[in-house]
């Protein structure tokens, strides 16, 4: 009887110990429990999301979450369509400064070896850009052109680590275009004073 009791106590103790260690190994870190979620969030689940008011176009490539949209560029270009001037039209001498784009200063590329206009602009069809393989690229899809050199930034932009979304974290993904933030002729942000200052906390 005593032996039988002792044996059962031992068995129970073993079972408890096994169960305990099993629980300990199952306990996941917070980060692991976050990364284990692999079911996508329904982007339409947040009802208050309003459509973006700016014009957008569907990106010709996909992010990890599938297709997404990007802010359009063409309507932001003051004198688009470029073929209005770049064509058969006659040019008057007094308009020369304007028409030669004298206001455009290029700070793009290495110092002393800056890019030229036709490194990006199509030499014949001025309504388009042209990549190094000679393909026509729409102004709205300039990420295809920029991504030739800045492929790391483009990869991050597609994923969401570079650039930003417009207004909403939920809803259909609408991202800023390269040219929304960067001036393509001088892409580096200019030095300036900060918007405010901080006083010490203590």
């Amino acid at each position, binding site marked *: 009887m005593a032996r039988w009791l002792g044996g059962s106590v031992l068995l129970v103790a073993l079972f408890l110990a096994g169960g305990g260690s099993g629980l300990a190994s199952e306990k996941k870190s917070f980060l692991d429990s976050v990364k284990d979620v692999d079911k996508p969030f329904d982007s339409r689940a947040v009802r208050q999301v309003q459509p973006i008011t700016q014009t957008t176009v569907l990106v010709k490539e996909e992010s990890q979450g599938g297709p997404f949209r990007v802010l359009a560029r063409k309507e932001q270009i003051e004198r688009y369509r470029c073929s209005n001037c770049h064509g058969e039209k006659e040019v008057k001498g007094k308009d020369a400064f304007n028409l030669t784009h004298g206001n455009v200063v290029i700070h793009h590329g290495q110092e002393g070896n800056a890019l030229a206009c036709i490194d990006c602009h199509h030499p014949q069809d001025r309504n388009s850009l042209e990549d190094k393989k000679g393909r026509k690229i729409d102004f709205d899809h300039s990420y295809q052109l920029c991504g030739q050199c800045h492929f790391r930034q483009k990869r991050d932009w597609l994923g969401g680590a570079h650039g930003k979304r417009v207004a909403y974290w939920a809803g259909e993904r609408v991202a800023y275009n390269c040219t929304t933030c960067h001036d393509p002729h001088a892409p580096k942000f200019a030095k300036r*004073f*900060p918007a405010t200052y901080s006083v010490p906390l203590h």
Partner: protein
Amino acid sequence: MSLPDNEKEKTDPTDALSEKSSRRAFLKGLSIGAAAASAALVVGCVPGADAAASGELRLRWQEFFKKNYRLMTQEEKDQTVERLERLAALRDGIDVQIGSEPPLPKVLYGYAFNITRCEGFMECVTACIKENNLDRKTNTQYIRIFEMEPGQLDPSTGDGKYFHEVPVENKFYMGTQCFHCENAPCTKACPTKATWKEPDGIVVVDYDWCIGCRYCQAACPYFGRRFNWGKAEIPKEEITTKQHYLGNRLRPMGKMEKCTFCIQRTRKGRLPACVEACPTGSRVFGNLLDPDSEIRYVLKHKKVFRMKEELGTEPKFWYFID
């Protein structure tokens, strides 16, 4: 089969709460009666006394005896929100819309900050001040940006008071704010349970239950909390009127306040004001429980770190480099 009546009572949590607060309910009834009586007295004795003033008094009495936000039913939340809106109109003459949106299901907010991209323009800071109705007089800021020496990763070694043209060569910039820890030490320090972590991961403060003891400020290892020494002084036209009970509503004097990931925006799917204002795209915000979100992309593909990770506070705010 139905439960016997006494069993039912035990299983209903709202009953247990009302049992506990019977003294409160008694005082509440008493006070409302007293307020009504005093108001009647004022109106009766002083002819032409401002009727609006007695209305304000009643609202303030009712506000004084309300519950902790977490114990309120949706109906009670709606009532206090309405009272606060009317009080804002009566006292300050402003028309505000205060929300009490609940957390969204299957959402856990996370934030990432790109220390390679930030150039210290501090537009996030001004946007935050504006959005969250921060005091202009004491220049309260929830966000701090530090100018850092290369190789350093602790903001306490950086310069948080810079004011010169940025970016400076061979320096980098690092922002701090409330990190909304999963295991938040501040919420454990609160003696009145006025601060807690919401199911969507945002650490919030019930400003009407905060007694201003500042234990939470002492408990936070990240200097994420701010104490207000008075009601915020803001030009009337600059007040953000779309507010949330737990967010940017105008706080009473002597309360603890902090970044709420702009709860009034994010619960409607919008980005926080700092993310929207950032001119360099250094700030990434999204749902940690969505494998396709930007924040999850950063966690998966970038070199990330968190501040004082060894403390085990599990902040939901990651720094990353390109």
